[in-house]
């Protein structure tokens, strides 16, 4: 679905944000994009949305060359959720806000209304269709922004730190919605600083550092490279830190989440003692 061939980007001021790397993302994958601030994550997302054009190399999305198609055309294929919903929301009701994108794509009348209603339902905002977006909480505003992207029905979603500035419950809500969208077939590329969230939701991770692609692989493989993660200021999820030594000794199976670790520990304890001593009936 996404293919980057030696993609590089240099800002007009000479800053080399992306130093030229390649990767591929297949349809239906859920990929986390991680790295320190300034590593080039947002730049890569903007290239995918066609908002910036690669200064070298080629970036293909759904068979289209992002340098050759108009941004509005690309918006049918790539839904780009910005970090701050306040950069987008300006209409008096959620309904109008959700209709903004599809209307720009030329939809009218019933088709338009259906798109808006469908998008609201997908993010659980149906009761808020007539509300003023600016009077909603930050987490709800972020969901409005996400729905306004979904209303254009793009198969690919690129999300720039969708949980910033929200409390844990709101963050979980939006990540669960994204997970559902992924299960319905969307390809997801999501920037996140929260390794616990990444461990819970993503299948694969790309690690950027200084404009280079440092790591690319399944979560377990990426989290195993603690040296590289440490260099970008990241720690693997706590489950991995806790289980590390036992895994190395072959006492615990590989895990990435706390739930998996819990199950593994209970398994070991059961093996050690009588299960009835460990688990209440």
């Amino acid at each position, binding site marked *: 679905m996404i293919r980057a061939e030696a993609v590089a980007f240099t800002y007009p001021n000479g800053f080399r944000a992306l130093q030229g790397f390649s990767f591929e993302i297949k349809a239906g994958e859920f990929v986390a994009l991680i790295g*320190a601030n300034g590593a080039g994550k947002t730049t890569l997302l903007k290239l995918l949305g066609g908002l910036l054009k690669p200064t070298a190399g080629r970036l293909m999305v759904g068979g289209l060359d992002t340098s050759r198609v108009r941004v509005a055309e690309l918006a049918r294929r790539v839904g780009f959720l910005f970090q701050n919903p306040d950069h987008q929301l300006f209409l008096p009701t959620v309904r109008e806000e959700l209709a903004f994108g599809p209307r720009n794509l030329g939809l009218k009348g019933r088709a338009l209304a259906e798109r808006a209603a469908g998008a609201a339902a997908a993010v659980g905002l149906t009761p808020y269709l007539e509300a003023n977006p600016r009077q909603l*909480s930050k987490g709800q505003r972020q969901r409005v922004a996400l729905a306004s992207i979904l209303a254009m029905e793009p198969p690919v979603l690129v999300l720039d730190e969708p949980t910033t500035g929200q*409390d844990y419950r709101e963050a979980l809500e939006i990540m669960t919605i994204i997970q559902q969208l992924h299960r319905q077939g969307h390809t997801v590329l999501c920037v996140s600083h929260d390794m616990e969230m990444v461990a819970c939701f993503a299948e694969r991770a790309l690690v950027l550092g200084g404009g280079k692609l440092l790591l690319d692989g399944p979560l377990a493989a990426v989290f195993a490279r603690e040296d590289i993660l440490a260099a*970008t200021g990241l720690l693997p999820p706590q489950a991995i830190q*806790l289980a590390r*030594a036992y895994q*190395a000794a072959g006492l615990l199976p590989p895990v990435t989440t706390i739930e998996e670790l819990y199950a593994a*520990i209970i398994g070991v304890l059961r093996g050690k003692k009588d299960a009835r001593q460990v688990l209440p009936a």
Partner: protein
Amino acid sequence: MMEPIIKIENFTFYYPDSQAAALAGINLAIRPGEFVGLTGPTGAGKTTLTLALNGIIPNFQGGRLAGRVTVAGRDTATTPCARLAGIIGSVFQDPEAQLVAETVEDELAFGLENLAVPREEMRARITMALEMVAITGLRHRPLSQLSGGQKQKVAIAAAAALQPRILVLDEPTSELDPRSSLEIVNLLQRFNRDYGMTIILIEQKVSLLAPLVPRMVCLHQGRIVADAAPRQVLNQDQLVAELGLEIPPVTTLFRLLRRAGAYHGDLPLEVDQGCRELERLLGPAGTGAFPCRRQ
């Protein structure tokens, strides 16, 4: 027992045109040198509480209020904000919007100039504040060239230059990456330990807060619903669920184990503690080495 440096008595506050109380019947006493974490879901009243401490409420932000907030013996309702500036320093969420000057040095000078500190002393205080935050090298840099984490450190240094006895920070790490967040948190710990500064840190990430602070205050719908050591707060399953608190994953693991009857000790708050408990539970990992590499 030392006299509290911050005393909030029966404090209630309504924003203008609002029927719901942003803060309702708050009672809180904080003693000099305490490091208090303040948490709770969005809209619980955390930011409102900080604005009440530094006098923005009611001096700058109007609204209906009842009760009293006293900071170092001064009633914030009758003391101008500017007078409180030398007593309580404030740092905000947005690293960009809270800075007013063009260069780091001028940013630190801003508050000192306002308080009419003589020029020579001003230079000395700027030097000291930059050293405290370990950004001496940035002194003459334009703010526009700094990263978010560096800007947040400048904001902290600018507050520290006024030599306040209290520092209140409203989610200073929410827009930073993990590395910068950790740097800020370590900095605050040093301020508290080495300079005896009273620190109130508002933070959503309980996993960052819990291992850090001896005392955690939880707000929910404008009320204080918990005020205890983090471990005791996290022990209350119902409270944690109701507030939707993000708790450290290692704590979650041992809560699950405890619920299953497999663990009976104290809940660990950090990975290192978790590793020790795990070793007690499962036996050593075999290599003889400490199971977790210390970070």
